[in-house]
């Protein structure tokens, strides 16, 4: 067991990948000499060389496209998109090519590409550096999407993403890059399956489902709720596509109330999918409608007002109050 930050855990996970898998390579802008704008790939080029830690031209579509080509040749590229807001030039390659190549080829071709994207806000940054575009990709069949909330998950999930034969997008919560936690680098333990949700805190009065950057916020909210005498169960979804509906359903059948929170805007967000599906699966168990907490329907606002935009402990507790009032 070692203590490390999420950034370091990903770094170690990438290192393990490069060590264990000769066909794996990293590619992205500034990942080599600089070690990545968040230092997530720090030190790797020194140990693995420029052929395996590739500083690419500044061209997201080119990065994803060449990664696809490399994977067709039998390699397992791990692309980094520098910031969430800059993934869009590569959106075409991701949705029309990467997601569909296996299906288009009737199963003959596989494109095991991993795309790492730092996402989310709360870092006081400028435009396009605080986005949460996961719903846009979740809506595209053929992709898998996971998002670690803690260092142990980060260490293992990046490796599991590389091992997966399907294309995987790993959304890394950038404002949690410096969050420290215990990592067992020997065995994944409960994190053996990246596509399963984890119940982080048991409760009986309501279930809060979160992922990525909001996980610590939800846990804090549950703690505060406990002081008010409410027992809140917190689930870290971990995988956005596929979603582990079984774990959420079982929880809602126990608690009867569901709140889903994400930084991404509520309208058209993942919370809607969860709400609809849980309504179907656990209708008779619901004491209240599913309540979603998310960003407002507006472009991500300027740093000075981002606090009013992002779901925080008060927003989650407000949703809890509403749910309990039914």
């Amino acid at each position: 067991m070692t203590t490390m930050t999420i950034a370091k855990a990903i770094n170690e996970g990438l290192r393990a990948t490069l060590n264990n898998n000769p066909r794996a390579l990293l590619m992205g802008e500034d990942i080599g000499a600089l070690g990545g704008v968040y230092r997530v790939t720090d030190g790797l080029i020194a140990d693995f060389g420029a052929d395996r830690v590739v500083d690419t031209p500044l061209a997201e579509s080119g990065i994803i496209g060449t990664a696809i080509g490399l994977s067709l040749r039998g390699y397992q590229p791990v692309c980094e998109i520098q910031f969430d807001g800059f993934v869009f030039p590569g959106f075409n390659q991701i949705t029309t090519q990467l997601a569909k190549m296996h299906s288009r080829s009737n199963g003959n071709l596989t494109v095991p590409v991993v795309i790492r994207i730092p996402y989310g806000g709360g870092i006081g940054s400028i435009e396009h550096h605080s986005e949460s575009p996961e719903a846009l990709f979740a809506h595209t069949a053929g992709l898998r999407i996971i998002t670690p909330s803690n260092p142990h998950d980060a260490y293992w999930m990046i490796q599991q993403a590389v091992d997966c034969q399907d294309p995987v997008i790993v959304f890394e919560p950038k404002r949690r890059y410096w969050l420290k936690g215990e990592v067992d680098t020997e065995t994944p333990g409960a994190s053996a399956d990246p596509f399963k949700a984890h119940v982080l805190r048991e409760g009986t009065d309501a279930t809060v489902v979160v992922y990525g950057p909001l996980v610590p916020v939800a846990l804090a909210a549950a703690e505060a709720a406990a002081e008010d005498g409410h027992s809140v169960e917190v689930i870290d979804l971990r995988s956005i596509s596929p979603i582990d509906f079984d774990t959420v359903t079982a929880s809602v059948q126990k608690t009867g109330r569901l709140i889903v929170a994400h930084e991404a805007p509520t309208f058209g967000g993942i919370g809607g999918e969860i709400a609809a599906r849980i309504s179907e699966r656990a209708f008779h168990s619901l004491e209240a409608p599913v309540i979603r907490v998310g960003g407002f329907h507006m472009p991500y606002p300027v740093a000075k007002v981002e606090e009013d935009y992002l779901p925080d402990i008060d927003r989650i507790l407000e949703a809890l109050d509403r749910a309990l009032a039914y």
Partner: protein
Amino acid sequence: MTLNKFNLPDVGEGLTEAEIVAWKVKAGDTVAINDVLCEIETAKSLVELPSPFAGTVTELLVPEGVTVEVGTPIISVSDAVAAQTPAAPAPATRAPAVAAPMYGTLPADPADAGEQAGRPAGGPLVGSGPKADAVKRRRRISASPAPSAAGREATAAAAAAAAPVAERVGVEAHDIWINPDTVGRPADEAAGPAGDLRPTLGGAISGLVGKVLAKPPVRKIARDLGINLADVVPTGARGEVTREDLVSYQAQRDAEVDKADSFWGKSGRPQDQRIERIPVKGVRKATAKAMVESAFAAPHVSIFVDVDASRTMEFVKRLKASRDFEGIKVSPLLILAKAVIWAAARNPSVNATWVDNPDGSDSAEIHVKHFMNLGIAAATPRGLMVPNIKNAQDLSLKQLALALNELATTARAGKTQPAQMQGGTLTVTNIGALGIDTGTPIINPGEVAIVAFGTIKQKPWVLDGEVIPRWITTLGGSFDHRVVDGDLSARFMADVAAILEEPALLLD
């Protein structure tokens, strides 16, 4: 001779119709594959249509200048050639001179060379325009599947119960009632983050057992009426309380409340005006007669035993969650019924009848029944009835559950048939459903034993020297002392209790 029809194709990605501008052939003409048949005009352009058939044109089906929909037959061509043509010009279909074909293998059928190979198969034409939306519904033989409904609810619950949540649960399913030291199992088991690890044991228990299922509108109605859903008997397919259940509950309450207010006759009024006279007839008359017969003919002895039914409660919970019992109402009564059958087999005299003067003789006989028609006392709109489940001993657990469901639904609807009430061999009266702990029931005439199944409540119980809450019920049984002595009745009751305490004995 085959007549081939060529249907107007969609030549432009979604066109719906076209006009036949000019025919290039007429009836009687010989055509080869790909000879131009006509020119059509679509919304996009003017297009020539090549013939898919070789043969003789028999009829032009659409005149020039007429617009038809994609899919309409426009020409028919018979595969008989009217006049033998000499070597046709390009695009002629000459027989291949080369013995070894260069691409793929054509079928050995010589007739297939060239002419017939072009005939479209009976399959659908591709690109025949945007398909018209169906306006009639396809007939169904079974209801559309509900995407993950009760089964999934149940399965998910089972899955959650079976798999320890995040390996940190201090409340593994089967351990939920015992071992306080499992509560707050040390966090070193968890490989997770610095999250809060305190499970709430009490909440978990009530959460798993006491959940009332109801649709949101029903919950609202219940709330508005001030009804506690837990008090209402649920009859929904998935075990939920329905609107109708609320209505009948409410009607009952109303009736009671209305009457309660005005029940007491005012003092000062004449006595005879304060006495309500109800004639005895129908079910009331029959019931009274039976009660008298039974009470005075059979010397009743009642015995009681307290049982720790926790394992039965647990078993019932598992059954509810099991896919096998999806949609079937399961309650502790099911286990009790099984217990009674099991115990009766070991103590046969309880499943018998005292017969006076059989065949006109002066003596009496005890008829021990080697079958169990298990009666369940039911309160129906018409009064107390005791329908029985025939040959209950042959039923599997699931079949018995179904039979109990059926019996209860029929009785509640007031539709129990006389035949169902005849031939019973042993009866259970489920007074627990009425909130009563135990009682001294009166034996159903013609039988020699009756079991009273009262409430199952959490009570302090001593286990391994410690006082902990367990689910306790007091079983009551009344027996006809002419047939069943004290020791037999005791053994019988003890056997029933043993099953309630450990349902796994049923596997014996």
